[in-house]
């Protein structure tokens, strides 16, 4: 075991099984000090399971961990921190009702005075370009700011290894650039970084080595510079990713959806009030709304699909009908279908089976009610059709929605709306947490729906996705919609500015 001494962290034969699945199987991993190492894989490949074992949240069934060449056993996050391992989670472990300094104090193993800690936070945040006010309450902060808390919390422990679980999924392109500068500086100072992602361009930009996982198994460890994004993708998915085909209609048709300032105030102090919303979507086009999480996306979806009603009927017009004051069912009947971001509990009822879930949004349009009763036969048939047409992996149509994986449930929900042939479809985060193959299918389906003459509105935080499928793109920031620009004439940086609430007309020559 001489070779282990040069590595900061070495994993050998890590194995973890959950009931019914083998999450990681015999995975090895080696990281040197100062190295940015990517852990690459699709959703469900076992990345999160592996790092949870490193951080002591999960217990490995088999395998050994060496830290600085010595075998160690990590049974709790506290032990991991003691060794010098820090972790920034994908879903932040933050407490909304507490202040920044209180939050950070909770992540420290050794209590120190709040004032002293606040000073340390200010100092670190200045040094690494991560501005943060220690006294603010977390619920008032943006997602980017929240991530800074996590990073500073980690840095305060002076770690040797920093684990980051998909840190950029919530950031604007500009914030991503800033984060990468900070991370590179930290690596130069000798910090090893284990960077988990499935975004290949980020890994190309940041990492030296990459370990690729697929279905819980390690495929290979490669030097990133020697690989192209195509070869990395092939390793990640086990096959070449098909090119995305764009069945575009030549000219958009008549206006299907028009939104004229519905003015919906926030439900409470932590919500966003929708202020300036002007938008039209025409038949045959896909319109994309980008934006950082928490800028009014949920509120926008609710305003459009009727969960939140406006006081003016003509503030929302569907197919020429003023529906601003109508509820979801009436809007659905007029031709508007929607897919919310949250699948379990919003898009589907977790404890109801797929047949019942299929019924819930389709009974008006598909006339699944006969003499006031549910037409069971037709509903079952409809649910089975969705499962077949969208290749939803499920043991049957009578299993509860919560038993499906995220990607499969998303396919089911999107399929349910698409099968109703809506005139207008609004989708929020269509491919979030869905593996690349299924994501491609979903994007393809959305384009095809548009090609058949429907108006499609996609709300997403995945900018690459929007640039790929939209005809026009804009952004939502603080409950205000930006202007919309043809996707062919706008750059990633410009969309980033829109997401940050900057108006492009000042300073940008607008190409028509």
């Amino acid at each position, binding site marked *: 075991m001489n070779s282990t001494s040069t590595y900061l962290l070495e994993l050998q034969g890590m194995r973890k099984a959950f009931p019914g699945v083998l999450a990681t199987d015999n995975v090895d991993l080696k990281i040197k000090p100062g190295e940015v190492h990517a852990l690459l894989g699709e959703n469900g490949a076992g990345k999160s399971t592996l790092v949870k074992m490193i951080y*002591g*949240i*999960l*217990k490995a069934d088999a395998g050994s961990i060496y830290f600085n060449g010595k075998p160690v056993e990590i049974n*709790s*996050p*506290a032990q991991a*921190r003691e060794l010098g391992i820090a972790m920034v*989670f994908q879903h*932040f*472990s*933050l*407490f*909304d*009702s*507490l202040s920044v300094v*209180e939050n950070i*104090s*909770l*992540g420290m193993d050794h*209590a120190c005075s709040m004032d002293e800690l606040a000073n340390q936070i200010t100092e670190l945040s200045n040094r690494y370009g991560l501005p943060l006010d220690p006294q603010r309450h977390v*619920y008032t902060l943006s997602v980017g700011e929240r991530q800074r808390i996590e990073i500073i919390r980690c840095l305060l422990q002076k770690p040797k290894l920093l684990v980051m679980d998909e840190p950029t999924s919530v950031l604007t392109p500009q914030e991503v650039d800033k984060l990468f500068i900070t991370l590179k500086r930290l690596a130069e100072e000798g910090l090893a970084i284990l960077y988990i992602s499935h975004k290949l361009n980020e890994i190309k930009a940041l990492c030296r080595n990459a370990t690729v996982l697929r279905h819980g198994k390690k495929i290979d460890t490669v030097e990133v510079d020697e690989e192209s994004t195509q070869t990395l993708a092939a390793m990640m998915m086990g096959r070449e990713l098909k090119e995305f085909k764009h069945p575009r209609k030549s000219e958009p048709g008549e206006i299907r959806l028009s939104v004229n300032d519905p003015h919906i105030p926030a*439900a*409470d*102090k*932590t919500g966003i009030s929708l202020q300036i919303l002007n938008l039209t979507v025409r038949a045959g086009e896909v319109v994309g709304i980008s934006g950082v999480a928490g800028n009014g996306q949920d509120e926008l979806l609710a305003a459009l699909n009727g969960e939140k009603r406006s006081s003016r009927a003509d503030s929302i017009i569907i197919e020429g009908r003023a529906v601003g004051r109508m509820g979801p069912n009436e809007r659905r009947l007029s031709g508007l279908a929607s897919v919310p971001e949250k699948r379990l509990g919003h898009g589907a009822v977790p404890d109801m089976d797929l047949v019942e879930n299929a019924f819930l949004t389709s009974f008006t349009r598909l006339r699944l009610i006969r003499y006031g009763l549910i037409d069971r036969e037709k509903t079952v048939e409809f649910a089975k059709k969705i499962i077949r047409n969208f290749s939803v992996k499920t043991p049957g149509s009578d299993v509860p929605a919560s038993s499906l994986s995220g990607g499969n449930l998303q396919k089911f929900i999107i399929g349910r709306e698409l099968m109703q042939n809506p005139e207008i479809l609004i989708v929020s985060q269509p491919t979030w947490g869905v593996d690349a193959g299924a994501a491609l299918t979903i994007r393809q389906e959305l384009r095809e729906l548009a090609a058949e003459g429907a108006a499609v509105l996609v709300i997403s935080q995945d900018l690459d996705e929007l640039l790929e499928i939209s005809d026009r793109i804009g952004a939502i920031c603080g409950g205000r919609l930006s202007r919309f620009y043809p996707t062919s004439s706008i750059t990633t940086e410009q969309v980033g500015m829109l997401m940050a609430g900057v108006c492009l007309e000042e300073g940008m020559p607008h190409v028509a």
Partner: protein
Amino acid sequence: MMELFIPAILTIITAATPLLFAALGELVTEKSGVLNLGIEGMMVIGAITGFVTVHLTGSATLAILASLLAGAIMSSIFAVLVLKLHASQVPTGLALTIFGIGLSALIGQSMIGVAYQGLPVISIPVLSSIPVLGELLFKHDILVFMSIVMVGAVMWFLYRTRYGLILRAVGDSHEAAHAMGYPVIKIRFLATLFGGAMSGVGGAYLSLAYSPLWVEQMTAGRGWIALALVVFATWRPGRVLLGAYLFGGITILQLHAQALGIGVPSQVMSMLPYLATIIVLVIISSDRSRIKLNSPASLGKSFHPSR
């Protein structure tokens, strides 16, 4: 005038004290994310335990300690069911109340009609001889003083100590607290025990001081008022103090109004404190954001560690 006024204030204090104990305990329990609806049951068990103990031993101190323990034991049953076995908190809490009322009636069968002279009054030297104020503030039984001390102690604990911070964090997001390596279940267990112990003492105050005798179901819904007080106070100890005295005041006012023979049926007057609770709760709850920002976000949610 003073002859009327001072006794009225004193009775308000005695009416408020049991509410204050129970509500403070429940506040700490809820701050950790556990909703224990069994306060009424824990209080009534505290009441009978205290009364039986003082009857058998003659020691008020032992009686208070026994009530404290009895409340804690009651809450530990709840805690095991809810935290270890993941039973749903609402029905389990309701069951605890029903169990407590039944058990206390069984234990108390032979205690009906037995008398006790009440907790001894402690007069703080010098201060208690101040006219009017001395009588109002410095001449009470030990539990009244203790209840006020507990308000300060709970405030200090929750907002000035690291353990208080951890407890609030567990109540805000148990997943995040678990991910950081804090023992969510253990912290909730302890917070639930504290809530039970305080409810037990609150119950003891009823049978040892407020009306020193045993009557079946003598808590008469005070557990529920204490529960409402926590929401009324938006989970802040200082406001629990205010609320407890406010509701104590309404209870006493209602008694005095009945004694003065105001032409309203006594049943309607007895409803007054409960009616006031509902009205205040509706007013408080209409401000959703206030509730949202102060209430423990994971209140009432079961926690399954994924390990």
